[in-house]
């Protein structure tokens, strides 16, 4: 796999515990990984904690990275897993209903929907729905993979995803009717 020489060198130096190399890796990837943490966390404080923990784990386990496959993918995987750690221990509501709408659609204006608004919607989802929605929709894991990561059944994963969509839609429709929130972030959860 083609990897820029610079990155290869940095990874090697990280394996040796070189602080400069670690700092460089951090500078290069922290933006993406922080984005992931924000999506999966309840608030900014938790997101920062998760980011820290993720990097500590990354530098700890970097010796296990075998130069196979995408380094960025490996980093993202560690980050997602770190964010899921606390959640994994909690029990999930194992609801399976008969009608699971596969496709949920919302009405949107042509005008841009604010990214912050969408982020807010995600953040205010109940944890169990947020996790599954993020993993499936944003990080594109399969239900089988999600079930393994969260220690739940595939059915639970599917139904939680469905409920997440329904909840998101109902919130958006409510906002469109009563507040003009789509144009601005309702709650500045992240600064």
């Amino acid at each position: 796999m083609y990897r820029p020489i610079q990155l290869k060198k940095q990874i090697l130096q990280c394996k040796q515990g070189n602080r400069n190399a670690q700092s460089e890796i951090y500078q290069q990837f922290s933006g993406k990984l922080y984005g992931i943490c924000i999506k999966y966390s309840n608030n900014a404080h938790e997101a920062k904690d998760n980011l820290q923990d993720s990097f500590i784990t990354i530098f700890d386990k970097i010796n296990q990275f075998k130069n196979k496959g995408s380094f960025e993918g490996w980093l993202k995987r560690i980050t997602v897993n770190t964010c899921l750690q606390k959640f994994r221990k909690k029990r999930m509501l194992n609801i399976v209903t008969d009608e699971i709408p596969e496709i949920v659609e919302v009405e949107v204006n042509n005008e841009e929907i604010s990214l912050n608004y969408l982020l807010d919607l995600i953040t205010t989802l109940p944890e169990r729905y947020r996790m599954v929605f993020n993993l499936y929709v944003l990080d594109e894991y399969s239900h089988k993979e999600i079930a393994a990561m969260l220690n739940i059944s595939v059915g639970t994963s599917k139904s939680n995803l469905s409920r997440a969509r329904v909840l998101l839609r109902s919130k958006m429709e409510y906002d469109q009717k009563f507040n003009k929130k789509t144009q601005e972030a309702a709650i500045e959860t992240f600064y």
Partner: protein
Amino acid sequence: MNHKKNIDDLFREHLKDFERKPDDAVWQAIESRLEKKKKHRPIFVWYKFAGVAALLLLLFSVGINMYKNNNSTLKEIVVKPTKNNINLKTDKTITLNSLEKNTVSNSEEQTNNTTKKLKTKSELINTQQNQFVVITKNDVNKHSLNQNTAKASNDIQSNNNYDNFALNNNQKIIENEIVFNSEKKEVKIPKKEDLFSTNNLALKEGSKKINIETLLNEEENADEKPTKTKKLSIGSAFSPIYYASLSKGSSVDENLANNATSNEFSSSYGVKVEYKIGEKWSIQTGVYNVDLNYTTNNVAATLFEPVAGTLSDISNVKSANNKLVILTPSNNNTSLASIQNNVNLDDSNKILTANGKLTQNVSYIEIPLELKYTIIDKKVGVQVLSGFSTLLLNKNEIVLDNSINSFLLGEATNVNKTSFSANLGVDIKYDISKKIYINLSPSFKYQINTFSDTDGGFKPYQIGINTGLNFRF
């Protein structure tokens, strides 16, 4: 113009590769943690080794103690006089503080050819050859005893007025001490004529008067057998218990982790058995029945009938007819509403209380195994103890009190049938007689593996004060 869009696409497009730069404080925090890790590692490893070393040392010293006790001789020394010859042959030097017949001495062991000091309160000292020794406190002066009871000898070494006693070259004369040589069977006895007569060993003020003849006669008939220490004791045990958690959390449901709680009266009762395995060590075991009760306040409870085959993990509380009880903190309307949104509430479901108290009553059969070390061993004794208990679940009830009445809801499904506790405590004993004593034993027990999931974050421990009446055998 509005158009319909798939919600997945909407979110994915905007948020999939969402990036945001964290502030510098984050990297600084990471860096300092990495530094700490570097430093901590050696110490951490050291702690592990220290722990293992301490454990080995403990086991080793227990072993040594036991070995020592088995091989020890003359911890308690009894003099066995010989009628004709009170000349003693030991090479112990003895310093006395007072004279008490037959008291136990704190003597150290004698080794061949060395002179060891015995600090003893006894004037009767047993040697393996059944010799007889009289020791007194006073100046070490010689005294001539009656021919029947002492053998005079001429090679006295010291400058003091020692007459009629022989000392071998190895012996030293020390003020207030008496020296014996195991070869020569000689004994030194304080002089002071006013104290001594040929047949009596009268003593200085404060000491006891002893008549050798009497002693000789008595001791001949004395029973040789040392008194057997009583090794086994059995007693009752009752303990009020303070039961709580080391960390904030709920034993019943993670939703209640932040609720206020109150302690109910918890207690245990049973029988305990202690067996001495050395001079300072003993093991303790027994059987107790432990009742632990804990109440969570401000609980809203809803009875819920699960759809067949699903919803097994909504709740840890199962009612008698297999309904589940969903618990949330009360005064939180959205929680109740969200329950209603999330589950299919139909007529068979009902809200039991919007603001009640939930009490968990659990009881175990506890079988402890503890090691005790004796610090003080007199009429009042003090021991430290440490060990483990095995806890077998006996009763598991959840009771709901909704201020009108209280009723048995069911049981908690997350309590393990077998769990353990790590125990640490102190035992204070008071001897009422040689065979009977009462004890007071405060202890701390940290419970392990109590719940099958630790979602609630509940880390239970007990602080109890065990009291009992005990009998020695």
